[in-house]
Each structure stands twice: as C-alpha cells, then as structure tokens.
C-alpha cells in the first residue's frame, strides 16, 4: 500500500526530567520516506524524545504537528513499539495481536509467518522465548497501516536473520511513503538513515 504524503514538524521542543535538561530548542521536519535514528549515550533522552513524539509524554516546551495538525489528534497514525513487551503473557500470540491491531486472522497469520513465528499463533506468550516475544511485538509492523513508525530499540534480542528482515520491512515502509524513527545501539548496516545525536545540550 502507498501512504499519503506525511510530515512531522517538530519545533523548539524542550524537555527536562528529574532536574536534568535532556534537550532544548530541538527543531526538525520529517517527511515521507525518511528514516531517522536517534542516537546518544544512555540517559541522553532518546526514549523520552521518542515517547514525546509518540504522544505518550506531555510536551513540556515547543510543539509537534503531524500533517499540520496537533499531535494529539493524529495518534491513530502512529505505531509505537517501546522497551516493554507490549504483549500480555497470559494470552496467545494471535489474541494479543488481534487486540492491538484489529486486523483479520489471515493477515495476522501471514504477519507471523514474516517474523518467523509461523505455527505459533496458538501459543501463549509466556511459553515463548524472549526473542520470540519480541518478534511477536514486532509482527505489528506487518499488519498495521500507520504511516509513522516509532521504534525504541527494535533490534534488541533479535538474531541476524530477523535483523535483516526488519531492515527490509522498514525500507519498504518508507518506500511506500512512511516515516520511521528509531533508536539502537548497534547501527544497522542496510538502512539509509539520518542520525540525530542527543546528549550535547548544556
């Protein structure tokens, strides 16, 4: 599928947490087709920035507009995957995804095939390994139609093969007109991305 041209406009964003200034006067515009990696040392505010853009944190200073509308009105266009498992351990893989995505069963099963969880749809999440649980959360990237992806450490607990699959999926997403923001400690080889360095504000 092809997305309408999308745009995220961040202007003069500032954030302070626990009396520490994380970033200030952060302005940038992200357009369809762009991949942005947010980099920086631990505690630099990567997660805070991503969660702010995802609308999970209240904006302390500045403004974020998506397609010229305030962020709050556009949250259904955002797909956010964070540190937490985002799956319920006592439910099956399929039930978890059904609740979060609302997609039909056939689509979900094919997405599970894409992330290498074919045949696991009836397993409870607590029976899966950590990597498999992570794949289950990531499977949403194959069955949700949101133009803006915000991925916090998506590569954690993935094997080489899955990393490649994920890179390919991100590439095809932005080629279709999506936007992707992510953080990671190991820079991915096969992506064409820009980098935003955090942790240099004083």
């Amino acid at each position, binding site marked *: 599928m092809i997305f309408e041209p999308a745009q995220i406009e961040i202007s003069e964003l500032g954030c302070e947490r626990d009396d520490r200034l994380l970033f200030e006067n952060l302005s940038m515009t992200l357009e369809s087709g762009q991949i942005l990696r947010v980099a920086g040392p631990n505690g630099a505010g990567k997660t805070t920035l991503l969660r702010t853009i995802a609308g999970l*944190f*209240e904006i302390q200073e500045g403004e974020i507009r998506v397609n010229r509308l305030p962020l709050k009105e556009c949250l259904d266009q955002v797909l956010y995957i*964070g*540190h*937490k*498992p985002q799956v*319920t*351990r006592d439910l099956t893989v399929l039930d978890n995804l059904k*609740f979060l995505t*609302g997609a039909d069963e056939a689509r979900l099963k094919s997405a599970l095939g894409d992330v290498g969880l074919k045949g696991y749809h009836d397993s409870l999440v607590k029976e899966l390994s950590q990597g498999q649980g992570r794949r289950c959360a990531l499977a949403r990237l194959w069955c949700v139609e949101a133009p803006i992806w915000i991925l916090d450490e998506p590569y954690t607990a993935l094997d080489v093969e899955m990393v490649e699959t994920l890179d390919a999926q991100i590439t095809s997403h932005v080629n279709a007109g999506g936007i992707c923001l992510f953080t990671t400690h190991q820079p991915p080889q096969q992506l064409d991305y820009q980098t935003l360095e955090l942790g240099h504000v004083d």
Partner: protein
Amino acid sequence: MSIEKRMLARELKLIAARPGDIFKPMWFLMLVISMVPLALAPDSDLLAEIGSAMIWVATLLALLLNTEHLFQSDFSDGVLEQWLFLDRPLAWLVGLKLIAHWLFHVLPLILITPIAGLMLSVSTEVLFALLATLFVATPALTCFSGLGAALTLGSSRSGILGVLVMMPLFVPVVILAAGVLIRATDGSDTLPLMALLGAFSVVAATLVPIAVSAAIRLNIGGSN
C-alpha cells in the same frame, strides 16, 4: 472487529487464562462472613440484625481487593500505553474496561451474596434489598476503586494505598445502601433511596472514567 468488541473479547480470554482472579474475592467474602459468627456469637437473631451490613462491608472489601490491580499488569507490560493509539478516547476505553471488570469480576461476587445471607440468617426481603443495593451501588464503587488503582500505578511501593485513598469516597454509597436495608427491614418504601443510589452510581460511572484516564495518562507519562 470494533475496538469495543476486542476489549470485551480480550477480557473474557484473560479470565479464561486466569480463573483464579474471579474466585479469590469470592473466597475472601465467604471467609469474612464465616468469621462474623465466630467473632460475635452463633445467635441467629443477632446475626440477622447485623447480617446485611456485614455482607455489605465484606463485599465492599472483596471488590476493593480485586480492583486494586485493575490496570497493573497491562501497565507494566506496556499494553496500556498502546491504548493511546487506538482510535478512541482513552476515557471511553477505560469505561469499557471498567464495564468488563464489573460484568466479569464484580457481578459474580454479588451473585454469591445470597449464600452469605443464608449463613447469617438474613430474611428474604432484606436479602432482595441487599442484592438490589449491591447491584446498583457497585458500578460507582468499581469506578472509584479503579481510580485508586490508576492513581497508584506508577508507584512501586504503594501497597494498598489505592484502597486507602478511595475508601472515604465510598461514604455516601454505604450510607444510602444502609438506608435502603433499614427500610427494607422495617418494611417501608425503599424506592426513593434506591433511585438516589442509582443516580449517584450513574453520575460516578459517567465522570470517574475521565479522572481515571487522566491518572493513567499521567502514569504513562512518568514511566520509561
């Protein structure tokens, strides 16, 4: 499938996965009720007199017990923050969750109170009044204790703080319900009080989810 149906379906599946969640509060209720004659005296007249009030208080405590962690596991799994991306206002989703909770966790509790009533020799008329008050009052109680649960989400050492914080707000509900029970014992008209209780419940069930959603948003904004 609409988000509303997905919410309810998920709740049902969670219950199927963790049936103990339903039974523990019932177990608690029956235990508390069994303690009453032991602490007081096995005198059935005496028990009948205080029985309905005891059952009310015990049900209230049992309800608090199973609402205390209403949002906790979804919050720590990170599922709760995904609610923000669903195409519905958070307060609406919270309302759905509370309705599901009431249907699947509170209603069963109410339905076993007649057994407790028989154990404490409560008369049939009073028993019906008791059931009616519980039925009408518990939506408000569920909403308030849900608020307590949401307010204390982010704090790791909250203990039963959510319960302590919300209990004073139960005063009007308890008083009105007691009024109904007293009138039922006298044989006088209970309808006006029931209507008042119902009105309180409806207003609480409409407004409190907004406060709950504010509390959840606040706690999501505070966690990493």
